[in-house]
């Protein structure tokens, strides 16, 4: 391997096709393309939703019509035609699955390819993963529900929650990300089809990692997920979210909203591995990922975001924390990898309102191919947030001379006792580092993998065990061939 050059490596990587690109053939129950009040009524009726929710949707839609698509992000793409999207698509089935055995075998196969391996999980009941699997827009299988129920934990699909716990949904939905927040949040509030809902009662420590796998399946289907996690006082939950999508040539739009509410002394840990179809090596196709994620903290509460972003053609995502309660803590750990023509504009917002609030931002960007990777973050210390503390570190690694790495931090401070540190660096893998590895008999490709993994370690260490393995695999898949 001694004469395996960086260029060859880059070529290998480019040629590597998206490993999870396959389509499941299931008849689906689709709404006609386009967006208008009737479609929203159709979705709401399909979901058998209560009247207040329909009204919320219509309000959000009215608001959305007055909004403009944001264009401040450092990304270029052809704006989606919102009238050319199917806003509802559900795998065709008349009844809910009673047990795992009833699940369509083809769907089981899909999950297997994704590495979810529900069956393995079933065998290993007692190991700690519960999966709320979302294929297209409807949740098809939920496990461990009864076990969670014993503890009073509610973990179900969003539409179930609307049916079974309407008062909880009504109370918390839209309190962190209101429909008026931004263009995509308004769109999501109007047309969301499903998602996950999680409620941890007072004083309960959720004994297992909760996870959802999202998958976009139907060609040309926009998926609008809505996730709401409420951790009541003194509770703890670790929530995992991961995604892969099949290969499509048409750009697919994904505009999700995630709301986290951590009440006094509660802690929410939210981890994401995102591996949607990034488009082929010429930049054709791929998912548009425009997500609004935000958490709010009560006194002594903590919200921690960890994300590994390797997919999507265009990513526009800023998981944020509102540190409202005194002594609350916000964390953001991110690895964003872009290759070929991918573009990512991602970062976080830390809004310090309470006293003695703390936030940590660790962002690692890796740009390969002709991709562009931007960090955009806001640290805002309000007037009454005495003794607020922030530490931010944003590192970028450039793999090729055609890629770009950009940093746009906004630091706004109105309190004299705040301490804010921000640091950013941009560089490529040192030739001396590679040389050192080569000298010790490690091939160039492996050396790059090693260095990249080490570079991301700070973030990967934050992931729950189950995810860390998958994330490392993803990094290797996204970079092993694609690192130049």
């Amino acid at each position: 391997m001694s004469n395996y050059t960086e260029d060859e490596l880059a070529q290998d990587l480019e040629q590597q096709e998206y490993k999870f690109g396959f389509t499941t053939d299931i008849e689906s129950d689709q709404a006609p393309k386009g967006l208008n009040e009737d479609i929203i009524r159709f979705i709401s009726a399909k979901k058998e939703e209560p009247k207040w929710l329909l009204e919320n949707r219509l309000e959000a839609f009215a608001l959305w019509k007055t909004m403009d698509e944001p264009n401040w992000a450092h990304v270029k793409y052809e704006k989606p035609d919102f009238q050319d999207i199917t806003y509802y698509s559900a795998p065709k089935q008349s009844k809910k699955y009673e047990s795992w055995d009833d699940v369509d075998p083809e769907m089981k196969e899909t999950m297997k390819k994704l590495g979810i391996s529900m069956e393995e999980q079933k065998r290993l009941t007692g190991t700690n993963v519960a999966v709320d699997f979302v294929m297209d827009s409807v949740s098809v299988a939920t496990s461990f529900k009864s076990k969670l129920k014993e503890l009073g934990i509610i973990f179900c699909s969003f539409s179930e929650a609307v049916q079974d716990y309407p008062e909880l949904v009504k109370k918390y939905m839209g309190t962190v990300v209101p429909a008026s927040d931004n263009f995509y949040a308004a769109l999501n509030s109007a047309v969301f089809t499903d998602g996950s809902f999680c409620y941890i009662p007072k004083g309960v420590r959720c004994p297992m990692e909760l996870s959802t796998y999202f998958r976009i399946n139907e060609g040309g289907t926009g998926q609008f997920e809505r996730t709401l996690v409420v951790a009541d006082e003194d509770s703890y939950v670790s929530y995992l979210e991961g995604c892969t999508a099949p290969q499509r040539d048409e750009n697919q739009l994904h505009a999700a909203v995630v709301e986290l509410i951590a009440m006094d002394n509660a802690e929410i840990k939210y981890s994401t591995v995102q591996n949607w179809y990034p488009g082929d090596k010429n930049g054709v196709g791929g998912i548009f990922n425009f997500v609004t994620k935000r958490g709010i903290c009560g006194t002594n509460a903590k919200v921690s975001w960890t994300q590994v972003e390797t997919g999507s053609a265009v990513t526009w995502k800023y998981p944020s924390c509102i540190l409202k309660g005194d002594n609350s803590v916000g964390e953001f750990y991110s690895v964003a990898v872009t290759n070929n023509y991918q573009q990512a504009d991602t970062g976080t917002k830390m809004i310090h309102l309470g006293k003695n609030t703390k936030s940590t931002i660790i962002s690692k960007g890796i740009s390969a191919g002709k991709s562009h990777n931007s960090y955009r973050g806001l640290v805002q210390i309000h007037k009454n947030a005495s003794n607020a503390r922030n530490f931010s570190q944003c590192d970028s690694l450039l793999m090729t001379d055609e890629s770009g790495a950009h940093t746009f931090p906004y630091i706004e401070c109105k309190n004299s006792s705040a301490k804010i540190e921000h640091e950013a660096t941009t560089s490529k893998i040192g030739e001396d580092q590679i040389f050192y590895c080569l000298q010790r008999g490690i091939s160039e490709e492996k050396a790059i993998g090693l260095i990249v993994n080490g570079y991301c370690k700070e973030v990967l260490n934050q992931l729950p065990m189950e995810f860390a393995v998958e994330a490392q695999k993803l990094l290797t898949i996204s970079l092993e061939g694609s690192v130049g």
Partner: protein
Amino acid sequence: MTELTKNNINFKSDLQPTTITVSEHDKQKALAVLQNTPLPTTRVEAWKYTRVAKLGKIDFVNNSATIDNISSYVIDDTNCSFVFINGHFSKEHSSQKIPAGVSITLLSEVNSPLEASSLKLEGEVFNAMNTAHLTGGLQIDIAPNALIETPVQIIHILKGDNILANFKTIVNAEKSAQAEIIQGFFSESGEHNFCNSTSEINVAENAVLRIDKIQYESEKSFHISTEQVQQDKNSNFRINTFTLNGGLVRNNLNIDVNGQNCETHLNGAYLLKNKQHVDNHSVVDHKVAHCESHELYKGVIDDNSTAVFNGKVFVRPDAQKINAFQSNGNVLLSDSATINSKPELEIYADDVKCSHGSTTGQLDEEAIFYLRARGLSEKSARHLMVSAFIGDVLDKITNENIKTYTHRLLNDRFGWEF
């Protein structure tokens, strides 16, 4: 009020006509911009933290004025100093002993119209206003291979109410030339004065140019300055900006690094109190390989004042082996003070070392205790700490006279005693 500027800045009708001829192309363009572009609002990204709407509410004039004694404004006792009052040249106070190798011309005495400007006019109201309604200006040419030891000093003083001074400095440092320029901006008296200054600076191959800029205007004045710098290969450009007083100050530094092996140094210190607003914007555009740039800005923000720092570094495709560093440090002394810091990197080449850092904090109470335990008063201890913090930037001044002068201004304004 002239019709030409109805959308943004107002002039009284008795505006004195300019005696400087700007190239017809620039003039037309500038007038068109003025007519079509409103004053920037905070919705414009570059002006996100700075409100200039107040400027639209004043009827400006550009009267000349006289001042009896300017000795307190002389920064360096050099024999080569040019004094402008309200943007108009004051022959009386200027001592024009120009060192050999330098030629200095008043723009009003240049016979041919000014050449096309390197300033960006589209969408830039203040540049356009400067170009279209120039009050005064100076062109400094430094001959090839000239090594100028005496700094060229330009002193701007504003006097009277509602004064608008549109000033332009053109500096051409020819091949292998070496020179230093000192710029001082002061107010004698009056309210709502507006100094709108632009500079076009060309640093040729192997040239070394250093600019020290001291801003000490009144808290009721406005100051917007734009430096457009072009650097040719192997050149070295350094600018130190000290903002010690001023109501609303905005400094734009645009550095185009066009040749390889260049060095660029941008340093700045800002000390604010009361309701001051100081905004430092810089863009270093690395267009070619093998260059380095260093940026160090530090500020102390007290009372209800607001400081803004926005530094941007571009590394264009194929501009490899760039080392670009940016650092911004802030100390907030009051809970009503605000700092908005936005260090940005946009990098399109891979073999680079770029970093930026930004910190915000306060004086270390333990260090203050240490000093107090050694007999310093609380006040002196704090002043010592602040001066040590700002000292990093003040130390970048190599000219002792400027250093002494700056310390005197700091004493006057902040009552430093130690």
